[in-house]
């Protein structure tokens, strides 16, 4: 009686072996590493590796090892100071379409890496870093798309020679006014053919005739999704420029984006970069300075134009119609203009933007074109002290188009090289499709992260020691078996967290501590049952058997209900709370295995199939 079949014992041994193996990476020390990754399709190659190694050698730096993975190159160092010096060397050597970042990586032996061993993923509250939750202004995204709809409607009607009076955006509709019903009907028919996703309807007010084109719900949803996706791409590009290892940028809900940057020290700089909105617009100049001065005085601008100001405050009239915007720029860099010696931004347009630029400049050789620098800035406060944010638009440069140009050109007129540099970075990363607002920030300094790890570790160890001691006192031999199960349970939790690469947070550690307390519950239930059986006079062997059997369904019921609570926590909670739910759930599952199957196999080995007169319980 009380003997496990061989396969069950083997299963226990196998699970424990796997557990130990995958928990192992957590005890290796971490190397300082410079990690190199390609952007925009660039991949790391052998030749890049050779270049970097040469450059490091010239600088007198000896990396511990250089590893190439599928998409990244890891240069390991013995000391953190070497890593910092190497960062400079690598930054100078690295081609533009690669980024590098500082990180820590455990130095695992090859065989452990081969089986996919990785240490646990520590949350920001343990390793330090910045977490920001960003809200995307969807109304602004919709409004912006309506402006584009108005432009394309106007262009379409003009091309088809359908004479309209005005085209205006009105909420989520484009409202077009005509002089007579006949033109309106004809235009509506043609437009409905072209703008298939919109719903058209006619409207009269006696004197004027309108058609109203409404953007469908489905289309609005698509616009929102697109805005969110583009913002995520832009933010990712901006974060890459920061050189942070293992950044997390992901969607949360319908209109939120989470950005997590481990190890970053300067939250102010990060927030500035993330929410910066500067961009460029190219427009043709309309009218001469006298007309502009007149417009400023009277407040009336000629049709199709808008009044802008240059950086020195001089008024200037520009055409309403845009040539290109920052959205259409695929790359940008900053530098110094060869002729004037002033700071400049060198821009590359995408194919659509380039075509348009070529068309416009070909038609307008000899005429002036203006560059508008657009930035969202705080311009003051209202009566409640609330900040007023406005798009500040300044004309930074007016130049005569000497010859047609398209894809590549440069823009001067920025105040300083820093401004040019910042602008180039933002243009390169792409514009935000919609304005964003930071609605939550959690920054953990590196020293606090380490403190949290230390305190978490201490409380796990002390809590466990107390329980282990108590179990031995209370259940003697059986208590020791339960303690063994408890230790193995901890190993299994660490192994599972490492395999799943679930994030361990401070509440997560609390979850582990709690499962330690609760993991013994299964054994308490079993052992109490065994004691009861002995008390009513059963033989030791029968008592063991009945104890395990009778406690089983109770343990299941009790643990499933706790799992339900953990699942709800995981589904509804965020960040740290999720970490707690994950370790709690993992702990429940592993503890059921170690406390039921694990202890039974040990108890069976001790007592099974023998003549036993008394149990040590």
């Amino acid at each position, binding site marked *: 009686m009380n003997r496990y079949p061989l396969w069950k014992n083997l299963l226990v041994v196998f699970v424990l072996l796997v557990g130990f193996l995958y928990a192992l990476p957590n005890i290796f020390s971490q190397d300082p590493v410079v990690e190199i990754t390609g952007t925009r399709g660039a991949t790391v190659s052998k030749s890049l590796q050779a270049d970097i190694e040469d450059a490091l050698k010239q600088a007198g730096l000896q990396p511990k090892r250089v590893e190439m993975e599928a998409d990244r190159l890891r240069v390991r160092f013995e000391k953190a100071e070497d890593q910092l010096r190497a960062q400079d060397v690598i930054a100078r050597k690295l081609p533009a379409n690669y980024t590098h970042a500082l990180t820590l990586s455990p130095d695992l032996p090859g065989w452990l890496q081969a089986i996919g061993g990785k240490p646990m993923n520590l949350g920001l509250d343990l390793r330090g870093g910045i977490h920001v939750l960003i809200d995307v202004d969807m109304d602004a995204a919709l409004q912006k798309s309506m402006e584009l709809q108005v432009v394309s409607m106007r262009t379409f009607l003009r091309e088809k020679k359908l004479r309209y009076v005005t085209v205006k955006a009105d909420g989520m509709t484009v409202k077009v006014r005509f002089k007579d019903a006949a033109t309106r009907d004809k235009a509506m028919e043609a437009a409905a053919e072209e703008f298939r996703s919109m719903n058209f309807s006619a409207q009269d007010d006696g004197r004027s005739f309108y058609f109203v084109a409404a953007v469908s719900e489905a289309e609005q949803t698509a616009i929102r999704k697109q805005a969110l996706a583009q913002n995520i791409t832009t933010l990712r590009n901006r974060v890459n420029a920061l050189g942070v290892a293992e950044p997390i940028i992901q969607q949360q809900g319908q209109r939120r984006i989470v950005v997590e940057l481990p190890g970053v020290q300067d939250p102010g700089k990060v927030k500035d970069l993330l929410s910066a909105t500067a961009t460029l617009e190219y427009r043709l100049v309309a009218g001469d300075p006298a007309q502009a001065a007149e417009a400023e005085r009277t407040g009336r601008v000629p049709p199709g134009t808008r009044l802008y100001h240059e950086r020195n405050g001089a008024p200037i009239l520009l055409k309403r119609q845009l040539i290109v915007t920052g959205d259409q720029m695929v790359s940008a860099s900053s530098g110094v203009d060869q002729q004037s010696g002033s700071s400049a931004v060198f821009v590359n347009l995408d194919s659509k933007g380039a075509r348009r630029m070529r068309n416009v400049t070909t038609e307008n050789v000899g005429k002036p074109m203006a560059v508008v620098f657009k930035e969202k800035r705080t311009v003051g406060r209202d009566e409640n002290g609330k900040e007023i944010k406005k798009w500040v638009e300044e004309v930074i440069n007016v130049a005569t188009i000497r010859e047609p140009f398209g894809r590549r050109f440069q823009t001067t007129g920025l105040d300083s090289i820093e401004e040019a540099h910042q602008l180039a970075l933002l243009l390169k990363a792409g514009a935000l499709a919609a304005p964003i607002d930071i609605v939550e920030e*959690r920054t953990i300094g590196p*020293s606090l992260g380490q403190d949290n790890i230390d305190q978490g570790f201490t409380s796990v160890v002390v809590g466990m020691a107390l329980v282990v001691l108590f179990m031995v006192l209370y259940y003697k031999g059986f208590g020791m078996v339960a303690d063994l199960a408890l230790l193995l349970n901890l190993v299994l939790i660490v192994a599972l967290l490492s395999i799943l690469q679930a994030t361990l947070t401070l509440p997560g550690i609390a979850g582990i*501590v709690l499962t330690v*307390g609760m993991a013994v519950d299964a054994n308490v239930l079993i052992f109490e049952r065994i004691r009861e059986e002995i008390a009513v006079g059963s033989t030791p062997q029968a008592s063991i058997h009945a104890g*395990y059997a009778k406690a089983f369904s109770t343990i299941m019921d009790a643990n499933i209900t706790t799992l*339900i609570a953990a699942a709800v926590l995981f589904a*509804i909670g965020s960040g740290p709370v999720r970490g707690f739910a994950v370790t709690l759930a993992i702990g429940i599952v592993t503890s059921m295995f170690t406390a039921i199957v694990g202890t039974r196999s040990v108890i069976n080995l001790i007592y099974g199939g023998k003549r036993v007169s008394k149990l040590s319980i």
Partner: protein
Amino acid sequence: MRLLKKGTTLDFMGKRKLALVFSGAMLLVALGAILARGLHLGIDFTGGTLIEVAYAQDADIPAVRQVLEKGGFTGASVQQFGTPRDVLIRLPQLEEGKSKKISDDVFALLSKAVDGKVELRRVEFVGPQVGDELTEDGALAVLVALMAILIYVALRFEWRFALGSVIALVHDVIITVGLFALLQIEFDLPVLAAVLAVIGYSLNDTIVVYDRIRENFRKLRKGSPEEVINISLNQTLSRTLMTSFTTVLVLIALFFLGGEIIHGFAFALLVGVIVGTYSSIYVASTAALMLGVSKADLMPVQKEGVVNNMP
């Protein structure tokens, strides 16, 4: 070693009127505290900014206050946090747009005042909208957890047990939250997580007791429901106390060694585990008894599927 004498025969159900009065009084105090004093909600729920800094020497709290006031940050609460060198600064919710930069401004100000001999330990900024959402989600989480448990227990046992367990859980949650209101301890996101864990834990306890009650109803041929429940409670008593004791042991370790941030969390769990242990004996069983649970309700209708998977 044993906590209790073998075969205790304590008359738990006989004292149920007394327990009822006791629970009623605790609930009244808890509800009164929640309504009258309100919860001292953390910035997770109210929105606002929290900054933790560590000075090279022991911090001069009045000086920090003065620096902040001069810098225009009125309404800041400054307090010591953990060690004498650590200072926690709380700023109320400010107008939108301004608040996300406020932590940088405050730290720059403090840093300037002591020539950079201060380190930024932690910043938490929660916008008003997010705070409202977290409050809603938190309340929703508690409700969903209770509903899910109600359904599970009703399926596995019987509706009287399901209702009894949920009554016990609501009892535990109200008393735990009430204590936070009474003592004005900050109620933040980790504490909410702890309350949910208390639900899980207390239920665990209750289920074990119910399991035994069901077993005894089926096994014992005679005895009133009151007697059967009493026997069941006595049989499970040493397990109930043992498990609570080991859990309390680790929670005490967590409370004293886990660091300042985890304090509220560990405290909520400690209170919850103790109240939960009490409620699984007195509240859950009493509720089931008063709802009229009887032998007829618990005789097996169908074969149980789980028992076959014994180890």
